[in-house]
């Protein structure tokens, strides 16, 4: 392994390889920042260019694109409230309020720094713990996926703390949207209304663009910002970057916890960076002392989401490289590239092709550093984009939403769906619905459904359904987590009331004491 590392470093810091990887990161950031062009698309389009390179160089470039694209998603999330890739959904919750306060640069630096830290931790997990962790990933069967999805849905209780009812309605709407198309297991057609294009269901990214982007454009117009002024004013200040980084370095627990969540979610095949970011954001809210301030522009919220989704990159490659099972859609494209270069995932990869594999793995660490440097120095300039007058910005964003939603499957109906979702999103937002629960429902619906249906099928071979759902150790842990998570706001509210009452009592007590005395 050590000799492989030495050789790998030689490959990585070869000028040609290093430049191509840096270029990959830069291209990734740009593509990731554009809503509709996801990391998966970027990789798929650019894979052919790596054919002419030798395998190590090609994989380094692809790794750079993957890392860059997942980070790039935060840029549009922060500046225009639209996740550039699904991974950046949770970044919008606090990133956009920060940008509106004129602190876009703060948010971008926080995102670059936490992405870098998360990405490096994820890559290190991949390098040192892959064979161990993959055994854990395999323990996840249908019942575990079902409970994992239910656990994810309990996040609604934190996200919609203001109105649980609206949160639950939103979650149900999201689940409903996720059922459109062919049933994942049974293959029955649902809610397609005769449109064959709907067989494939509603593409998540199309829904996201509509749901996040369109209301923002409409808001710009509704608030009559057109012609008169700008969306948010960015004040240029010096020393922003340094202070933001210091603030985050002081919270190592936040960054490390988020990175571990990200890596773990990545390792479990089928759950991607979007789930990683949302779960990590939820934990950040839960463990924070000022949890009620989240959603109004907290750097911690941005950091939690970004550290997790970049750490997920390393995690998603664990089952891919050890077993040939991609942990997330972009990892599937990397697998295709590996095969085309004649590399077969599995133990062989680490033994026979150790030189190439370790070059790829170590290059992920380096790519994260490169990404941080690019993001760090770019933040100031990119953040200025928001100073553009709204009458330029609104049509540009509108134009990009159409291109983005069409490009994902080259399907015109997707554009119609995007606009429809956008209008629905605008109305729901006016009615004070948090977008989080709806999006959670859309992401977790299919995971929960697959888990439930397959578990019920497995139960046919058992004496009772309960054996499948309630007797497996990981399931039990997840069930306990679900109960804790769902009950948390109640507990937290009770604790708050209790402590207030305690304070009142002490006040009364002291009064009594004085009276007595």
């Amino acid at each position, binding site marked *: 392994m050590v000799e492989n590392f030495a050789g790998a470093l030689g490959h990585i810091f070869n000028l040609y390889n290093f430049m191509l990887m840096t270029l990959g990161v830069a291209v990734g950031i740009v*593509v990731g920042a*554009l809503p*509709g*062009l996801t990391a*998966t*698309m970027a990789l*798929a*389009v650019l894979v*052919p260019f790596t*054919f002419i390179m030798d395998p190590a160089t090609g994989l380094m470039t692809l790794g750079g694109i993957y890392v860059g694209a997942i980070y790039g998603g935060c840029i549009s999330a922060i500046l225009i409230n639209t996740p550039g890739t699904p991974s950046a959904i949770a970044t919008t919750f606090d990133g956009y309020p920060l940008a509106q306060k004129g602190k876009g640069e703060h948010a971008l630096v926080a995102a670059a720094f936490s992405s870098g830290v998360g990405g490096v931790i994820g890559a290190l997990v991949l390098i040192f713990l892959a064979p161990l962790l993959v055994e854990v*990933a*395999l323990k996840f*069967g*249908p019942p575990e996926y079902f409970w994992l999805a239910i656990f994810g849905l309990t996040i609604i209780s934190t996200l919609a703390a203001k109105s649980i009812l609206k949160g639950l309605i939103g979650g149900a709407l999201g689940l409903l949207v996720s059922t459109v198309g*062919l049933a994942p*297991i*049974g*293959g029955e*057609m649902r809610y397609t209304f005769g449109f*064959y*294009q709907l*067989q*494939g*269901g509603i593409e998540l990214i199309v829904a996201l663009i509509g749901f996040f982007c369109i209301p923002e454009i409409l808001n710009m117009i509704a608030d009559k910002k057109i012609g008169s002024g700008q969306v948010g004013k960015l004040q240029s200040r010096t020393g922003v970057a340094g202070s933001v980084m210091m603030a985050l370095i002081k919270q190592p627990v936040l960054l490390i916890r988020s990175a571990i969540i990200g890596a773990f979610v990545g390792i479990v*095949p089928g759950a991607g960076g979007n789930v990683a970011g949302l779960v990590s954001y939820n934990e950040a809210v839960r463990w924070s002392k000022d949890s009620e301030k989240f959603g109004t522009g907290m750097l911690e919220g941005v950091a939690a989401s970004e550290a997790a989704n970049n750490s997920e990159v390393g995690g998603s490659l664990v*089952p891919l490289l050890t*077993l*040939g*099972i*991609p942990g997330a*859609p972009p990892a*599937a*494209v*990397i*697998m*295709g590239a590996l*095969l*085309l270069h*004649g590399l077969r*995932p*599995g133990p062989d990869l680490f033994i026979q092709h150790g030189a190439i594999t370790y070059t790829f793995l170590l290059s992920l660490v380096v790519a994260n550093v490169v990404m941080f440097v690019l993001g760090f120095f770019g933040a100031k300039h990119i953040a*200025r*984009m928001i*100073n*553009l*007058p709204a009458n330029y910005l609104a049509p*540009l964003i509108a134009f*990009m939403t159409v*291109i*983005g939603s*069409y*490009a994902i*499957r*080259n399907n015109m109906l997707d554009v119609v769906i995007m606009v429809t979702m956008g209008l629905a999103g605008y109305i729901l937002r006016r009615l004070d619905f948090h977008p989080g629960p709806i999006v959670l429902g859309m992401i977790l619906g299919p995971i929960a459904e*697959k888990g439930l249906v*397959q578990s019920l*099928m*497995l139960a*046919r*071979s058992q004496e009772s359904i309960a054996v499948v759902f309630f007797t497996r150790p990981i399931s039990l842990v997840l069930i306990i987590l679900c109960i804790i998570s769902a009950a948390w706001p109640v507990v937290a509210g009770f604790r708050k009331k209790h402590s207030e009452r305690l304070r009142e009592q002490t006040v009364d007590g002291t009064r009594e004491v004085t009276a007595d005395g």
Partner: protein
Amino acid sequence: MRQVKCLSVLFVLLLAMVMVVGCGGEQVADEKKSVADKVTEEDQKPDFPTRPVTYIIPFNPGGQSDVEARRQQPLLEEFLSTSIVIQYKPGGGGALGWTELMHAKADGYTISGINIPHIILQPIARDNAGYTTEQIKPIAIFQGTPIGLAVLKDSPFDTLEDLVNYAKEHPGKVTVGGSGKWSGHHIALLQLEALAGIEFNYVPSTGAAPSVSQFLGGHTDALFANSNDLVTHKDRIKVLGLGSDERFEALADVPTFIELGYSMTPSIDRGAAVPPETPDEVKKVLEDAFVRVMNNESVRKQMIEQGFVPLRLDAVAAQEHINKKQLEYTKLLKELNLP
């Protein structure tokens, strides 16, 4: 003001990128057109292709259909002297892409990857699949993926006979994983059940990868899987039988189902097709290009290494193959009174 200008330039650049990525290299068309024109004049061939050909992949990027198309792409571009634009249309287990193919202009500029038995089983299973098997006009079938049945290394079953006998005594108790309903794996399972007179509990997944990971994690007792997956995981599993006519090179010690007394050769075969009504001379040009790809030694070698069977069926042979399989499956499903 200067700032605004700079940003506008930046935006235009970004948008240009979106167009390039989104529209998949349409602008290459003009450059290549003149070259293609010259070639066609010299060769006295039909005036095709003069612009890029769209190759629909009805599955997700990174899947086997994508890998295969990417392998063919540079060769096809060379033989057709035009660029090949790969377009992903995932959905409905491939049905979305094939329906799109039916709606495409029948001028040869849109072709699609096809999978057998998907294109046969989907129209039987759903009355609204969006296409019929007869509408799909194959130009080649280039790859076979024999389907095998496997159990884990530590399983008590050592042979197919062991498993079949156990299943006979415990009907519906053996859980078997696979990819999808009315798919290659599902039909393989139905065939084996019918031939052996047994009943399994089939637990399908949404794709090959999740079914493999569920099986490796011990959540299902056995698995129907593609030969390439079986080769990848051969250290962890015992393959009990394989759906090829003869023994498979990469798994030479695994008996075929036929050797074991079950006359079935379940397989997933990949090919390419054009919309109905595509003119014969255009079809011929595409077919010739695919035939040259199929004859390429390095392509064949790579396929074998990765656990596939390279095939060489031209348009006529491919159509015969589809007809044969269609007959076989319709008969089976009728006997079983399904779906």
